[in-house]
């Protein structure tokens, strides 16, 4: 009985861990190309989930998800073009505050469009009560969906950044924007692209976890804090580490319910965030050597 309960908590932790990881990766992509922390990252997850629910009203599920991801990507690009692109040599602080403003704007916009209702997509395979039984542990197929999608995203991003021209150009832009411009790389387009990419990833995550965690207009800012914690915990800029950190945070939170009142669940991530920022800002997996070379 003890082990069954243990694994049940573990699975719940992994499920939340994947979404934290994906939000953390979104932070990293934009941070890597622009040096800014985009606090509207959680809003992309919310937009993806909400748009998919709406589209599902008249489209089959796969098309609704794809449509939601594409729409959110366009939104991400537009946000960059309208609010960020035209700034002349903005300071990092100014850009961060702008992203906080954007997140409030999106949240309130979503409230107008969708209202306060809690929504969710149907389960991708099976339904609420269908479960795979793994040695006495009951596992919802949707959990496998979200873990699988997270893995695919990480794999795709790794291939993209390491082995494609475009990925290399984005990394160049991240490492030294002036030098990238001197190579003839249109740096502003790379920044737009990073917003498009992380919006798409966030939206996809929002769709996959929506059946389990539900979607509401206000989930974005909470997710942004969790995702930021994960990004810091893993080491800013490192997407693989964000995945590990996401699982760590998810599992910690999940087990905390075992010993602490549920109300303290959210305090865990804040506590970790503060502790990391004080003790080891380069993150658990941050390589000091690489940090120095990378200059962030």
């Amino acid at each position, binding site marked *: 009985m003890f082990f069954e309960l243990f694994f049940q908590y573990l699975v719940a932790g992994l499920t939340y861990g994947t979404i934290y990881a994906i939000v953390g990766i979104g932070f990293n992509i934009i941070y890597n190309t622009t040096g800014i922390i985009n606090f509207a990252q959680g809003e992309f997850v919310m937009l993806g989930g909400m748009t998919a629910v709406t589209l599902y009203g008249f489209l089959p599920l796969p098309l609704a998800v794809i449509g939601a991801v594409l729409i959110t990507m366009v939104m991400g690009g537009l946000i960059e073009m309208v609010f960020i692109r035209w700034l002349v040599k903005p300071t990092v602080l100014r850009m961060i505050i702008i992203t906080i403003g954007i997140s409030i704007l999106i949240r309130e916009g979503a409230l107008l469009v969708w209202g306060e209702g809690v929504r969710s997509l149907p389960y991708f395979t099976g339904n609420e009560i269908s479960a795979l039984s793994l040695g006495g542990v009951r596992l919802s197929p949707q959990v496998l969906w979200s873990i699988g999608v997270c893995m695919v995203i990480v794999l795709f991003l790794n291939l993209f950044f390491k082995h494609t*021209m475009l990925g290399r150009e984005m990394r160049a832009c991240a490492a030294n924007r002036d030098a990238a411009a001197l190579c003839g790389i249109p740096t502003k387009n790379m920044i737009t692209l990073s917003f498009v990419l992380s919006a798409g990833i966030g939206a996809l995550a929002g769709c996959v976890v929506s059946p389990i965690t539900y979607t509401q207009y206000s989930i974005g800012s909470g997710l942004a804090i969790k995702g930021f914690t994960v990004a810091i915990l893993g080491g800013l800029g490192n997407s693989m580490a964000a995945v590990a950190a996401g699982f760590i945070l998810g599992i910690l939170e999940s087990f905390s319910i075992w010993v602490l009142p549920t109300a303290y669940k959210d305090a865990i991530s804040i506590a970790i965030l503060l502790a990391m920022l004080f003790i080891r800002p380069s993150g658990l997996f941050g390589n000091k050597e690489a940090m120095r070379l990378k200059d962030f």
Partner: protein
Amino acid sequence: MLRIRNLDAGYGNLNVLRRVSIHVKPGEIVTIIGANGAGKTTLLKTITGLLKAQAGEVLFNGQDIGAMPTERIVSGGCSLVPEGRQVFPAMPVSENLLLGAYVQFKRGNKHEVERDLDRVYALFPVLKQREHQLAGTLSGGEQQMLAMGRALMARPKLIMLDEPSMGLAPLMVKEIFNIIVRLRAEGNTVLLVEQNARSALKIANRGYVLETGRIILEGEAEDLLANRDVQRAYLGRDAE
């Protein structure tokens, strides 16, 4: 090839360059010498659009590039090897060079990039040896070579070098200057900004002396080398 007229530039309210006019003709090495803070780097940054001019015009092959973004100036054939090399430290040498070829890829000259890469490796054999090493782990001289190689990958018509000798051992400085001469022999046009006035004037065709944001002297390189004011101020020779 490059013609600058009455250029004013600076940072914010700080005016650095005042009514600077220079020109560079195809196939020559032109050097701009001057002390720290004279505005040499500011001038190159303004030409490449990293800094916007406050007044004046910058013509490159007859086209006004004053308001263009950096990437368009570079794809137009005007490349800068920036001060302090500015290589991409966390990427290997080969990737740094391929990024330099960005404009070639965009022009659709994909098949030529391979040849250009061989050409750069022939010019800097040490880069070939270090091909897979992270650029941040190279020595200062090797990074300078990498920065030059990266700029050459774009097939520039004009290549501008900002203090290539800075912080390098004397032997390495000599090698870098030999390579600059070789670049001219291969038909390149070079605008060289240097504090190392003697070495720069020795290889240049013409030179300008920049002092606190103004061009105070210009002429053939050998005339400047023989000029007593230049000797006293920049070549470390006391007038008897």
